[in-house]
């Protein structure tokens, strides 16, 4: 057999094209990404077929964890600053400027007013470590309005921003009475329309809602 001498080829590949692709994808992800907001507790929301997205701004988020603890948050730093000033005045907490700023850049609040000052005085990393063990915002739906601190938060938040949409994010395993407390509190403030945060689920084939969605698709 005659020997063939294979011509040696260089193993150097031009990486330029690959580099281009990598950075194209990178820029896509950088633009499309929205960082997961840090939450004090992990909440697994139940799923529904509803496909309305959460509004981007002016949200009041009430988180209920499986044990029934309640965490309260609103978006927008400036609004948070206004809110804490309002609360400070209303509840006479004597917060310092520094503590108010900590609140403005922080996340959800899950402590009663009596502990709010000491909570905000903590350094940020200590706060994050404490948050999962926080007792939650007290909610008492009996007539004693002073004990219902969630109501005070809602009142102040709506004073600072009347456009706030109220979203309830509760864990599927939370027992109903805990959620009912929140709903009752909202009802006391004459809020009868609010949003429940759910994850998306497929519409069962053959149901009335399925027919409806099919009709919509055909019309388009």
């Amino acid at each position, binding site marked *: 057999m005659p020997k063939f001498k294979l011509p040696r080829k260089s193993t150097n590949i031009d990486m330029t094209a690959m580099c281009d692709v*990598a950075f194209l*994808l990178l820029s896509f*992800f950088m633009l499309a990404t929205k960082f997961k907001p840090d939450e004090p507790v992990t909440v697994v929301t139940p799923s*529904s077929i509803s496909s309305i997205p*959460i509004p981007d701004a002016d949200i009041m988020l009430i988180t209920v964890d499986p044990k029934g603890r309640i965490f309260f948050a609103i978006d927008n730093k400036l609004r948070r600053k206004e809110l804490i000033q309002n609360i400070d005045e209303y509840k006479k907490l004597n917060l310092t400027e520094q503590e108010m700023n900590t609140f403005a850049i922080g996340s959800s609040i899950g402590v009663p007013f009596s502990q709010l000052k000491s909570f905000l005085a903590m350094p940020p990393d200590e706060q994050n470590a404490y948050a999962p063990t926080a007792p939650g915002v007290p909610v008492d739906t009996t007539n004693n309005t002073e004990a219902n601190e969630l109501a005070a938060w809602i009142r102040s938040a709506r004073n600072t921003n009347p456009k706030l949409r109220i979203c309830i994010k509760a864990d599927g395993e939370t027992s109903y009475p805990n959620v009912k407390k929140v709903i009752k509190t909202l009802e006391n403030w004459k809020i009868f329309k609010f*949003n429940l*945060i759910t994850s998306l689920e497929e519409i069962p084939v053959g149901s*009335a809602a399925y027919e409806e969605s099919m009709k919509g698709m055909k019309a388009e």
Partner: protein
Amino acid sequence: MAEMDTSSGGGHKKGPGVKKSKKMSTRVDLTPMVDLGFLLITFFIFTTTMAKPKTMEINMPNTEKIDEKDQTKVKESTAMTILLSKNHRVYYYEGLATDPNVPPDLKVTGFKDKDGIRDAIIAKKLKVAELQRSGALGPKDQATFLIKPDTNSTYADMVNILDEMSINDARVYAIIDITPVDQEFIQVTEAANPGN
């Protein structure tokens, strides 16, 4: 693209006195840069939240005082009461059970695709449509579902039943507090079927 042709040199020949500078290749090895690019991509993939959670809008019945004449009375024949109980169990009966001495026919089911509460809702809607056709009910009467979550039900049950309402296109429904009478109905049914 990243390479530039440097071999062709200048236009004219350099004189003998001019030192020929060593020609360096402008080729850069881009492999580490690609590595870096992909590393960052993986980072962004992991931190990103692509599926934005959705919301479900809910309107609670107004608790403010309404004039007697403005109140809409639910007709017994259009109503179906759904009770949410422990272990994601669902009890339902037709009508309002206003008379505690006549216990309704409580049926037990759950959230499932077949033979679940969905079929009961569809059956009720058909029944109301049938009554409308026969003239027993006016065209404005719709199947009305009264949802009463018991204290030992979970939030997921509530969301599921609201979801069933939208799945089955049930327009008229309300979440109301469970009454002791209804709780008694559940207890009686549970006592009758200890196997469950």
